């Protein structure tokens, strides 16, 4: 494997600034959402297999633990979506001055929390 890509900042060396937390959370939610993707793959397979198999999902979905995980999945997907949008326009070099980086960061938190609350309590 030819690996000449500059590696990610070494976590234990750098001072923890807000942008670092955003980056770490982007990766953590990314890992969580990856597991979620596998779960969605299993879910659609159970739908394809028929109602006798789908019963298995219905049993899991009825548990409180499932609702708990689903709540954090909602938080995670909204965070990853909104924070990811920032990374997308940063790729074009836009909004990268320190002031914009911080204000868009707070906007990400605001949108993540409001979207999650709207989905769970208002819709």
């Amino acid at each position, binding site marked *: 494997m030819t690996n000449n890509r500059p590696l990610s900042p070494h976590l234990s060396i750098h001072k923890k600034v807000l942008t670092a937390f955003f980056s770490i959370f982007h990766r953590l939610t990314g890992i969580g959402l990856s597991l979620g*993707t*596998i779960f969605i793959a299993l879910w*659609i397979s159970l*739908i*394809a297999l028929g*109602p006798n198999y789908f019963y298995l999902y*219905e049993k899991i979905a009825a548990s409180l633990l499932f609702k708990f995980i689903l709540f954090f999945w909602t938080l995670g997907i909204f965070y990853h*979506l909104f924070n990811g949008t920032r990374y997308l326009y940063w790729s074009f070099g836009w909004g990268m001055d320190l002031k914009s980086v911080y204000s868009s960061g707070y906007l990400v938190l605001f949108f993540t929390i409001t979207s999650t609350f709207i989905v769970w309590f208002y819709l």
Partner: protein
Amino acid sequence: MKNYARKWLIQRITAILLIPLSFWFIYHCLSFASMNYSQLFLFFKSIINSLLFLIMMISMLIHTKLGCETIVEDYVTSKSLKHISTLLINFIVYLSMIIITLAIVRIVLI
């Protein structure tokens, strides 16, 4: 194009695709919660829904593969462990792609 430049670009293309598709899916998840089996089945029986779902899932899996591989490259220092993790990620991603495609084809054709 160099390998990493290509990966960088694919990660961003799938990200752009995933913004509208994720909102579409989350929106429908709200009604999935109260649907029974046959209503869910009928939802995916629709070509447009199953096609959007398939595009979303394939993009999501490619995005997942690139993201997880990057994390492994950054934080797994042991060369053999890095190799095994990458293999495992690829195995799960490609298996999921096959499973999802077969599931959607079965639902639409039944």
